[in-house]
């Protein structure tokens, strides 16, 4: 099964590598499939992520949207039995290439999770610099700058600047999630993946996260998974709609400009999903 998969990738990729070689910028997904042990979760996804924009992945639960997201920074393989086939190009290089270090991929493609997961044994300050400290030791003044800049970018600085030494877990849920965003952007990734970042939050905190995403796309490419279609239509520039087929394997049904997808979907299934939910 894997061999066959690899062959298709090879065939398919031959014409595309040409483009890839010319210092292509951004992320492109080619023929991506993912498995949990013997069970396939997504199949043959092809997708180009537009830089400095927000791409939303929507679809009913179980359609593989989170799985797809986790494939984009090699988090899927962290789950026991998680396997990936296909290609994800980041700036023209396949992140699944044999010479690629998954640890380096994750430094360029950050992630924010569904449930805020600050490190409870670390202070707010240490949470923000946790990623930086892995790679190099910087003088305190430089770290201070990074902490302030990251927290400002995450729209959290004003609320926590006087309590940088309290545990990251003592903040409110919405603040925790913004702390996790600050933690992710402190290492200056190119792309930030967000897996339903507001689903555990109350409406006000959700609103602040959405507002923050709008600010962040000036600097970062954002891919967000959400089950909330209003949210997708509000915040995203591009939308990908996924659906699990009869064999329960998720596929990409439609991908395009958010306005197009929501107002004038090309595929009947997209239309059904959107109108069903909106109606």
């Amino acid at each position: 099964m894997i061999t066959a998969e690899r062959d298709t990738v090879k065939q398919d990729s031959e014409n595309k590598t040409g483009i890839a070689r010319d210092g292509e910028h951004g992320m492109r997904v080619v023929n991506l499939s993912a498995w949990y042990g013997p069970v396939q979760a997504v199949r043959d996804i092809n997708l180009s992520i537009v830089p400095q924009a927000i791409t939303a992945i929507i679809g009913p639960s179980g359609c593989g949207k989170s799985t797809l997201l986790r494939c984009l920074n090699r988090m899927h393989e962290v789950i026991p039995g998680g396997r990936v086939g296909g290609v994800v190009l980041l700036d023209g290089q396949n992140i699944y290439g044999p010479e690629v270090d998954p640890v380096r991929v994750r430094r360029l493609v950050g992630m924010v999770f569904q449930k805020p997961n600050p490190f409870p044994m670390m202070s707010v300050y240490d949470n923000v610099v946790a990623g930086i400290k892995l790679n190099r030791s910087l003088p305190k003044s430089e770290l201070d700058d990074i902490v302030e800049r990251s927290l400002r970018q995450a729209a959290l600085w004003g609320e926590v600047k006087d309590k940088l030494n309290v545990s990251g877990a003592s903040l409110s849920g919405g603040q925790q999630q913004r702390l996790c965003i600050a933690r992710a952007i402190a290492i200056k990734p190119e792309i930030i993946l967000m897996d339903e970042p507001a689903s555990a939050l109350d409406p006000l905190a959700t609103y602040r996260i959405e507002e923050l995403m709008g600010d962040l796309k000036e600097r970062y490419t954002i891919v967000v998974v959400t089950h909330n279609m209003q949210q997708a239509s509000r915040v995203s520039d591009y939308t990908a709609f996924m659906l699990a087929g009869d064999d329960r394997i998720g596929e990409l049904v439609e991908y395009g400009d958010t306005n197009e997808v929501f107002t004038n979907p090309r595929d009947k299934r997209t239309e059904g999903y959107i109108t069903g939910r909106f109606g």
Partner: protein
Amino acid sequence: MDKIASGSRFAGGEDQGDKLFRWLVTGLAVGTIVLLALIIFLVFGDARSALLQFGLSFLTTAIWDPVAERFGALAFIYGTLVTSAVALLIAGPISVGAALFLTEYVPKWLREPLSFLIELLAVIPSIIYGLWGLFILAPLMRDAVEPFLQNTLGQVPVIGALFSGAILGRDMLIAGVILAIMILPTVTAVSREVLRAVPDTQREGMIALGATKWEMIQGAVLPYAKAGIAGASVLGLARALGETMAVTMVIGNSSSAISPSLFTPGYTMASAIANQFTEADSEMYFSALVAVALVLLLVAALVNVAARLLVWRVARGPQGSARL
């Protein structure tokens, strides 16, 4: 029997049966409290004459002279502390490593069999550790490990004193090593439970920052599990403090003066009791040995309570941990 029972039930005896049963199990449960009280009372009672005779000096002097009837348990206390510390120093890191291997590295199908093998170490009786220690480990330590330590670490100033003196093949280091093996399964099993309680979201948070597996463990898993691992170690310590047979067989049982060298034969509190109890020939000698048992009982209780408190704290999770 059944008919009689239902007959009496009709007569309003239902409550009687329930009451009787409740009294019975409550009585048994209270019995355990009475038992513990009796243990403390009797041990204290028989230790009393030695405690009255020697007072605090029982804990602070190392003279143990049955002929002159002068008794101080300091050497035994020292031996207990040193062997337990050696055991914890060796078994602690190895156990945490093994627990990490079982939770973070090993494939699922291998996890249970491997845990079972390590936990089997816990059901091997103390006497068999003693036998193995006496005939297999002690010669190995005497002929290979201890000369090596003496030639290397023994040359280093200050800590060299730990590895000085004649190598006899019965000493506190060997006892410590045997104890380390014996507490390994306890500390491993409890640490494994603690590590399993670390939420996966913590691990993923660290990995997504571009951490290697070890950096994930170091940055997210171990800090979260810190208190629980401490609790596991204290539980191991509790077991090491009271361990008797295996230590008795390899420690040399000699009450010579306290020496910094781990190569000195010694006594622990438990081995002193086991070794001398049946030879004690005077009231005061008995009483002194029972007093040693009393000290051991109190220390064990204290350490166990400390471990419970730590584990209890862990059960509540780190303060304010991302509860949503």
